[in-house]
Structures are given as structure tokens and as C-alpha cells.
């Protein structure tokens, strides 16, 4: 029995699809999937076999809970601040003339193309005790003693917002550009005050941008390592540092694995929840 030419053609197409995808999938399978499965496996094993002790420490060892709470709090603050700063920027850019639009987007994008380490370093220079900000404030007579702006949560949050702001502005800008200007005019021609029109017409239409930007910023902050390590001075202790310490100093693979898995589950849940509002590939900017 032979298949029709269409079926054969279709099969050949699908084989080609797989052949084209195979190398990329192999890399991801080796360096991403296999390690995650391995971490999951290790998180429930110790020398004697199966154990839940690594997860039990979330309830007994205070530092686990503290790190997670602090990380989520920082991620929340960073996301809220990025939204508050990013929304007006995206709004102005979306409604500006072409020249201004280019300028605003360039200012948002140039930091994006600058190394994260370079920017962490710049914030260190700006915020340290004898740094630029403190010496300017003292010269201006606003403060007498230098403020502790870095080596704490404040410095970490400041630099993190700076690094992640583009991930907020770009989705917002994309969403706002899709809002037809006629809608706003229609709203006001029907007698809506500008504030009313904004709240009831514009804001709801920009929600996809708000969701995409907030999810990206929140999730990226959850996994941040460089910034809290360099600018936190040990006082912004985040989950990623807990993972790193467990490996570098204590060689505690079980502990590091269980923390990783819990963090990963949190991240996946956030994406899952967000994808009920807008599709995953739209969050990631593929569409």
C-alpha cells in the first residue's frame, strides 16, 4: 500500500523541519534540559537515597525564607518603579514626532547595549560614600554627612531599575503604538475629559504592554546576581546569591538544587499566569 503524494510531501516537510531544528534542540537539551532534570533529581537525593530534607530546610532554616522574601520584595519594588518610570517615557515616545521618538528610544536603548558590569561599576562610582552624588549633595549644602546609598538594598534596586528599564519601556511602546489615535479623539468627542478617556480607553488598551513589561522585569529581577553581589554589600541577599554560596563555599549541591527548583517553579508559575492574559511569545517579543 502506498501513500498519496501529498502525504509523502507532508512527511518530507516535517522531516526537514525536524532536521533544521535538531542542532538547536540538541544544544538546549544538553545544556538546559539535562541540567534541570539533574538538579531536580539531586534536590530529592542525599547519601542515603530519597529525601525531602533539602526542601524541609525552607521551613526550618530561616535564611532560605529570608532570601526568597527579600528577592520577591526587591523584584516587586523594581517592577513597580520601572512601570512608573517607564510608562510616561513610552507614552511620550509613542506620541512624539519622529525625531524625538528616535532620541527617546536611543536613550533607552544605549544603556541596554552597555555591559551590565559597566553599569554596576558606574553606579558604584556614583553612589559610594565619597562618590559623585554624595559629594554634590554635600557641596550643595543639602546634607552634611554622606548618605549610605550603596552596599545596601537601595543601591541594588537603583542599578537594577536602570538595567531593566528597557525591558519595560519597549513592550509598553510597542503596545501604545498599536493604539489608534482616533480612539482617543472619539473618546473626547463624546465628551470624555482627558483623564477619563485615559483611564477608560487608553490605559486598558495598553495592558498587554504593561503585562509583558512587568513580567519580564519581575522575572529577570528574581534571577539577578551581578548587581546584588556588587552593589548589595551583603545586605541585599537574593536567592541567586544563596544558590551561588551553597556551591562556591559549602559545596552543598542538594541545597543549591532545591533552591534552584523552587525559584524555577516560581518563574514558570508567573509566566503561566501571565500567559492567561497575553500569549507567551508576545511576552517574549516574538510577535
Amino acid at each position: 500500500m502506498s501513500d498519496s503524494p501529498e502525504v509523502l510531501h507532508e512527511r518530507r516537510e516535517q522531516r526537514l523541519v525536524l532536521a533544521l531544528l535538531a542542532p538547536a534542540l540538541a544544544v538546549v537539551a544538553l545544556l538546559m534540559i539535562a541540567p534541570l532534570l539533574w538538579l531536580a533529581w539531586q534536590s530529592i537525593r542525599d547519601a542515603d537515597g530519597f529525601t525531602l530534607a533539602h526542601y524541609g530546610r525552607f521551613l526550618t532554616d530561616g535564611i532560605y525564607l529570608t532570601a526568597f522574601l527579600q528577592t520577591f520584595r526587591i523584584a516587586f519594588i523594581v517592577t513597580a518603579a520601572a512601570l512608573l518610570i517607564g510608562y510616561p517615557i513610552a507614552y511620550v515616545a509613542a506620541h512624539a514626532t519622529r525625531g524625538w521618538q528616535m532620541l527617546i528610544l536611543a536613550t533607552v536603548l544605549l544603556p541596554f547595549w552597555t555591559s551590565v558590569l559597566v553599569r554596576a561599576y558606574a553606579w558604584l562610582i556614583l553612589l559610594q560614600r565619597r562618590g559623585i552624588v554624595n559629594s554634590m549633595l554635600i557641596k550643595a549644602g543639602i546634607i552634611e554627612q554622606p548618605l549610605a546609598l550603596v552596599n545596601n538594598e537601595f543601591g541594588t534596586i537603583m542599578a537594577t531599575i536602570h538595567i531593566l528599564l528597557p525591558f519595560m519601556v519597549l513592550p509598553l511602546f510597542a503596545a501604545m503604538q498599536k493604539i489608534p489615535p482616533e480612539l482617543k479623539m472619539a473618546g473626547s468627542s463624546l465628551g470624555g475629559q482627558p483623564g477619563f478617556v485615559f483611564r477608560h480607553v487608553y490605559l486598558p488598551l495598553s495592558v498587554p504592554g504593561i503585562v509583558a513589561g512587568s513580567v519580564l522585569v519581575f522575572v529577570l529581577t528574581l534571577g539577578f546576581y551581578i548587581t546584588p553581589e556588587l552593589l548589595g554589600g551583603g545586605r541585599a541577599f537574593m536567592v541567586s546569591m544563596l544558590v551561588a554560596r551553597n556551591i562556591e563555599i559549602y559545596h552543598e549541591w542538594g541545597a543549591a538544587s532545591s533552591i534552584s527548583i523552587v525559584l524555577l517553579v516560581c518563574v514558570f508559575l508567573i509566566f503561566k499566569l501571565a500567559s492567561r492574559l497575553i500569549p507567551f511569545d508576545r511576552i517574549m517579543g516574538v510577535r
Partner: protein
Amino acid sequence: MRNLSSTRIALYAFTAIAMIWLMVPILIIAPMSFSSARFLQFPPPGWSLRWYQSLLGDPAWIAAGRVSLIVSVSSALIATVLGTAAAYGLNMARARLAGALQVLLLLPLVVPIVITAVGIFLIYANIGLLATLPGLILANVMLGMPYVITSVLVGLRKFDPAQEMVARSLGMNRPRAFFAVTLPQIRPSVVSGLVFAFISALDETVVAIFIAGGENQTLTKKMFTALRDEIDPTIAALSTLLTAASFLVLAIMSLNLRKR
């Protein structure tokens, strides 16, 4: 005449301040790097090239720079080839399969980088790729591929597949039709994917902290270690060079996009 309500003025003022806040950290580094002072001071008391001399005269920094360059160039090229093939495949695949595979291929962007780093460390420790160049390149291929895939997929969605069909019905085989018809049209997306992958590899730090070592220390790993110990203006010189390099790459890319 456009009327400037107070809301509008507040909005513009806020945006202007935010733009300054975005640019200041990038703009202060270059003047610091030309400072003659032994410690970081702003404004610098005098000018000199001593920090560039101390950077370029140090074999350890040069070696790290070499490793970073090799790793980012080769991983960006490999990621572009694999990523473009994958994007082309995804674009052809049935919707359901494509959706699932796309999530899988974009995982490196989603999984927190520390977890990725720990995972790669685990695998490499077992197959002997720790502190090796191929290991570093392979890791950056994985991290760079999602950028290429995303960028090329956007390009392919704008491309009319009928053109490739026409070329094939005129007798070209599939690979020839791809290289002669499709690739030139999606070239800008491929190039931006390549640039993204290159810059991401040049900037990658967390994975390097875990898996780079010995002679194969990357610039970012060495810089991170230096920043943890002490911050002297050598780092400012390096930062200025790195920033200049990424802006240069960006400028080349935007020229390339405009040429079309």
C-alpha cells in the same frame, strides 16, 4: 497650535529627567578613565592615559580580552547558523509543534541565569568541559540562540513565502532557493540576531563566573572579580573600551540595516 497643559509639561519634564538618569551612568565612565588621580574622583583633577597603560600593559587583561573575543565571535557565528535554521524550521512547522518547540528554544531567556550557570557547571564537570574554550563557546551558543531565533522569526513573518515557492517551481532546489531568495530578504533580522548574540556573549558574566577558569578566564569574569576586591580606574578604562566597542558594533549594524 498645540496647547501645553500642565499635565503635558509635567510629563515632558519627567521624561527629560528620566532620560538624564538613564544616560548619566554611561557618560561619567569615560571622563573617569582619563583621570590622573590614583583614586576615583569626579571631576578628575587632571588628565592622563595611565589607566589605559595599566590596562593594556597587563598581560592578564590582554589574555582575558583575547578569550572574550574568541568566545563571543565564534559563539555568535554558531548561534546565528543554528538559530536561523531553527527559526526557519519553526516557521514551517505545524502550529502546535512550533508553539511547544519555541517555548523550549526560548527557555535560556526564561530560566534565571544562576540556575543555568549551576546546571552547565554540573554537566561540564562530568564531561570535562570546565575551564575550556569549547565549553565557554558552547554555553554562549545556547545563550545567544534565542536572540537569533526571535529576530529571524520576526523577519520570516514579514517575508512572503510565495517568493520561495516561485523560485522552487522555477527549478531551484530548496537550499538554493533559501540562499538566493529568502536569506537576502531576511538578512537584516539575521544580522541583528548575530549582533545580539555577539553582545550577549561579550557581556555574559554569570555563567563565566562558574565555568571559566585558569587560562580561559573571560574579560567579564576577571572584571567581576576585580570589582569585588577593589575599584581602581583601570576598570573605568576597560569599561570605556567595552562601551565604545558595543556602540561601534551597533553603528555598523544600523548602517547595514539602512543600506537596504
